[in-house]
C-alpha cells in the first residue's frame, strides 16, 4: 500500500519535472548517465565486459565452441545471443527460463550485432560446411536501473571486441583476435508526456509510454530498430530519435576505444 502511494507520488513528480524539461537526476534529455566498461573481466570467457550505465550493471561473456555451420551458411561462424534477467538483478526478475522480456532483449541485441555485420563470420569458418566457431554471447543483468537495451548492447559489443579466438586450446593453430568489421551502437529513447528522453532510469521507464531503440553503424546508417511499450510515437518523434541516435552513437562509440 505505502509503496504504491510513494510510487504514485514519484510518478507525478517525474512527470511534472519532465513537462518542465527537467529530469529527476538533473540530466539533459539526451544525456547518458556515467558509463564504465571493464573488458576481460572474466578469464574463463573468450571475451567479456562488465558495463555500468549509472546503477545498471551488466556482465556479458562470449564463449566460443567448435561446431558445425548451418546448412544455408556453410562458410560462416554462428552467433547466438542470450539474456538472463537473473533474480539477483531486480526484485521484478524471476527465476526460470527466459521470459518475454529477456527474449526481447536478447533478440534486439542479436539483431544489432548480426545486421551490422560486426563480426566477420566468414573468418570464423575453419572448414566449409564442417567446422566453424560458434559464438555464444550471454548477457547477465546483475543490477537493473533502466536502459537494459543499451547497456546489454554495449556490453556485447565490448565483449566481442575483446574476444580472442581460442585456436590453441582447441588444437586448431594460433589464437587471433575476434575479426571485427564495425562497432554498432544502440541508443534507446523513451517517451514521457510527449517528451523524448535518452537512457531512461528504471523510474523513468515505469512512467514511459513508448520506447524506441535504434542501432546505428559508423556511417550513421540504421541496422536495427525496436519500438516497445504500450504507447504510440508520431512519425516526427521516430525521425527525431533516429537523428539523435546517429549523433549520440558517435559519442558512445568512442568509449569502445
Amino acid at each position, binding site marked *: 500500500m505505502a509503496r504504491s502511494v510513494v510510487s504514485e507520488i514519484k510518478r507525478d513528480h517525474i512527470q511534472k519535472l519532465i513537462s518542465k524539461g527537467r529530469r529527476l537526476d538533473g540530466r539533459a534529455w539526451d544525456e547518458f548517465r556515467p558509463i564504465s566498461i571493464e573488458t576481460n573481466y572474466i578469464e574463463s570467457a573468450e571475451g567479456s565486459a562488465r558495463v555500468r550505465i549509472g546503477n545498471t550493471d551488466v556482465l556479458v561473456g562470449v564463449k566460443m565452441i567448435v561446431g558445425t555451420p548451418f546448412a544455408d551458411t556453410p562458410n560462416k561462424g554462428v552467433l547466438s545471443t542470450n539474456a538472463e534477467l537473473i533474480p539477483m538483478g531486480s526484485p521484478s526478475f524471476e527465476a526460470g527460463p*527466459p521470459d*518475454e*522480456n529477456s*527474449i*526481447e532483449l*536478447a*533478440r534486439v541485441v542479436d*539483431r544489432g550485432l*548480426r*545486421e551490422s*555485420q560486426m563480426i566477420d563470420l566468414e573468418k570464423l569458418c575453419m572448414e566449409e560446411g564442417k567446422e566453424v566457431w560458434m559464438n555464444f554471447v550471454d548477457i547477465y543483468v546483475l543490477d537493473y536501473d533502466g536502459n537494459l537495451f543499451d547497456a546489454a548492447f554495449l556490453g556485447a559489443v565490448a565483449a566481442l571486441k575483446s574476444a580472442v579466438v581460442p585456436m590453441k586450446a582447441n588444437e586448431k593453430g594460433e589464437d587471433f583476435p575476434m575479426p571485427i568489421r564495425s562497432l554498432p551502437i544502440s541508443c534507446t529513447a523513451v517517451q514521457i508526456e510527449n517528451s523524448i528522453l535518452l537512457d531512461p532510469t528504471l523510474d523513468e521507464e515505469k512512467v514511459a509510454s513508448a520506447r*524506441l531503440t535504434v542501432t546505428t553503424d559508423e*556511417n*550513421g*546508417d*540504421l*541496422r*536495427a*530498430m*525496436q*519500438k*516497445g*511499450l*504500450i*504507447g*504510440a*510515437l*508520431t*512519425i516526427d518523434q*521516430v*525521425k527525431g530519435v*533516429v*537523428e539523435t541516435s*546517429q549523433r549520440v552513437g558517435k559519442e558512445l562509440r568512442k568509449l569502445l576505444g
Partner: protein
Amino acid sequence: MGGNSNVKLIDDNGIRIDGRKVDELRNIKIEAGVLKNADGSAYVEIGKNKVLAAVYGPRECHPRHMQNPAKAIVQVKYNMISFSVSDRKRPGPDRRSVEISKIISEAMEYVVFTENYPRTSIDVFIEVLQANAGTRCAGLTAASVALADAGIPMKDLVPAIAVGKVNDQVVLDLNKEEDNFGQADVPMAMIPRTGEVLLLQMDGHLTYDEFQHALELGTKACEVVYEKQKDALRRRYKVENEEAPAEAETQNQEA
C-alpha cells in the same frame, strides 16, 4: 536479412518477381466473424499468407497475479502452425513468436479501451496457417478486426504492413523471396487517422533517407489496409443483420 545478395529480385522495368511494382501491395482479403466459439474472429490473406485471429474476452484473467485492478490486460499469442512453413515447425512457442506476441500485445493494448474492463483479460490468438513473409503484420491486421468483431471498444483499427529494401531499392510488402534475399525489413503498424506508430521494427541496412522513404510508403499502405479492414467489418455487420431474423425463427421452432 540475407544481406547484399546477387539474386535479381527487381527487373530493369522495376517489376518484382511476383509482377508487382515496388510500391504495390499483394492481394489482400479480409473476412470478419469466421469462427463460432470465439467472441470475435478474422481471417486475413495477404498474398500467400493465410492468418486467423480469434478473440476471447473480456474474461477472467488467468494467471491471477497478472490481473490489473484498474484495467484489462491484452494478451496476444502469435503462433505459426507446424506446416505453415516449408520446414516443419515444432509446435509450441519459440523465441521469435514470444517476441512478436509481446510487441503485438503492446500495440493492441494501446488502442483497446482497457479501463472499461478492469481485472479482466482480453485474449487474442493469432494462428499463421500459411506463411510467406509479413505474417506479424497480417496477424496484427487480423487481430484488430477480430477485436472489433468481438464488440470491444477501441480507439481505432490498426493496419500493419512491412516495407523493405531489395536490390538497393525500398519496396513495399516483401514476399518470401524478397525477405530471404533482401537487405532490410521494416514491419510497422499505425493508427491511420492520427498517424501514430504502434509497432516499428527494423533489421538490415538502411540509410536515413531510405528509412524516411520506407516510413512514407508504409504510411500510405496502412491506409489501404485500413480500408480493407473497415470493409470486412461492414460486410460482417451486413450479414449479421440479414441473418438475425432467420436466427430468431430458428429459436422459435425450438421453443
